[in-house]
């Protein structure tokens, strides 16, 4: 991405850049004639097209920055009351020999708008929040949620998993922002997962409208949607309503789920990074896993239920095929 920016840098023309920015900002409201003026502008000079692409890339970069999260380890905040610094960084622990520590952009919203605040959980920790309107939100481990004092009907799920029980108000739908998507509902119980490039929304009661990339999809009880960056389609599947948000009752219910998916869910629920050997990542499991905080009992249960060996590497677990 930066290589392209280099080409633009060499040839930067302030007037062209400003024009490109102006177009980018006006397009969402543009009428037919303005669109056609935009096309004529693009065609008038190859630098116009390049300048506009550079702006479109900026949008991409901002979206990417929102999603960056490399921290499976407990994170520590920088000095919360440092008024001289405009930024707060959460610095993640190093992942291992050779891997660089990464910056996690956690509290950007909290800095930039004083009426916003965050609620977060450490890996493996659960927490519940009640909003002034009566909506309640249950957060699973490793979750970061940003709320807004001035707008109690909106939440942003930056990462993790949360179960929303929304108080009905058809005049003011409750919405959850996850990356580029908006989930809107009017009185519902639904579960949302934001896990790096993947988003999962499942409705337990009521209904939501999931909006992303210009599409809007209605989901009803027992329906689940999975959106994965890198695959163009959306997966819509059925999930029994009882299974949705079952993590709150300390269990994970599966119907033909892959071991890869189970490993990711376990990581989120146990607060321990769980990986799976590629040779068994696509194996499937149907059944219920009762979560246990005791590592010895949990690994024993997983080994017998899934037919795997679990090895510990430092604080992380790895699922391996049984050695015969």
């Amino acid at each position, binding site marked *: 991405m930066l290589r392209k920016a280099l080409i633009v840098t060499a040839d930067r023309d302030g007037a062209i*850049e400003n024009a490109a920015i102006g177009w980018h900002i006006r397009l969402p409201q543009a009428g037919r004639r303005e669109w*056609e003026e935009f096309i004529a502008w693009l065609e008038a000079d190859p630098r116009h097209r390049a300048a506009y692409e550079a702006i479109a890339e900026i949008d991409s970069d901002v979206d990417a920055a929102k999603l960056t999260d490399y921290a499976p380890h407990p994170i520590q905040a920088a000095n919360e009351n440092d008024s001289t610094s405009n930024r707060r960084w959460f610095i993640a622990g190093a992942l291992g020999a050779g891997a660089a520590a990464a910056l996690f952009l956690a509290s950007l*919203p909290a800095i930039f708008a004083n009426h916003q605040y965050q609620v977060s959980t450490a890996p493996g920790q659960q927490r519940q929040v009640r909003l002034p309107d009566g909506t309640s939100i249950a957060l699973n481990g490793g979750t970061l949620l940003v709320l807004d004092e001035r707008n109690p009907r909106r939440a942003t799920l930056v990462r993790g998993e949360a179960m929303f029980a929304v108080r009905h108000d058809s005049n003011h739908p409750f919405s959850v922002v996850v990356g580029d998507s908006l989930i809107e509902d009017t009185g519902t119980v639904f579960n949302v997962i934001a896990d790096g490039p993947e988003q999962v929304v499942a409705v337990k009661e009521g209904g939501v409208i999931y909006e992303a990339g210009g599409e809007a999809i209605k989901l009803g009880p027992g329906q689940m949607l999975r959106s994965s960056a890198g695959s163009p389609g959306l997966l819509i599947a059925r999930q029994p309503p009882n299974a949705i948000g079952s993590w709150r009752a300390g269990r994970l219910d599966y119907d033909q789920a892959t071991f890869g998916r189970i490993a990711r869910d376990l990581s989120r629920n146990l607060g321990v990074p769980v990986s799976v050997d590629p040779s068994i990542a696509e194996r499937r499991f149907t059944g219920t896993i009762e979560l246990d905080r005791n590592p010895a009992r949990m690994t024993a249960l997983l080994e017998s239920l899934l037919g795997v060996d679990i090895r510990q590497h430092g604080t992380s677990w790895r699922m391996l095929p049984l050695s015969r």
Partner: protein
Amino acid sequence: MDRRREADTAIAGGLIRIFVEFRPALTRLMTARGAASADVEDLLQDLFLKIRQLPAEPMADPHAYLYRMAHNLLRDRYRVVERRSRREALWLEQQPPEASLPSSEAILIARERLKYVTDALGRLPERTREIFWRYRVESEGQKAIAINLGISLSAVEKHLQRAYRVLLETKAQLAADSAEVRRDAPKGTDCDG
């Protein structure tokens, strides 16, 4: 085509008719943006399928609507390609330490990008930052922002223009600095640019 109907409303059947006639214009838009002709065909096909699924509804300015949808599809297609490399970087990060490490370039790009975005946003006045945040991160419309903040739409536009300018400048500066570092790096160093 009856001009009054074209200007005022389009129901789904009518929208399909408009789409068919409007294909050359939509092709022109995507070509002007730099899309390859094979991609253009692909995207128009996707657009057609989406339009077919729309419920019948009156619509003002169906041509603008089609331009907007085509433009968004182009943007999303570009993002899918981008996300793939980001997703790979993320996936590799989650593996235990002794597994293969992500290519240093993937990590560097992700971190540089994070850094310049936060640097740039940090340079903005608070109000401008807030407006940009609402618009890009919270997906609030420009009109809604104007109403909620009690300012004019053109004031919102000016704030957004400023934000994008600063982002562009910060990014260009970082790219220039990186280029210098790579140029000046001693030979034999692994500094794949």
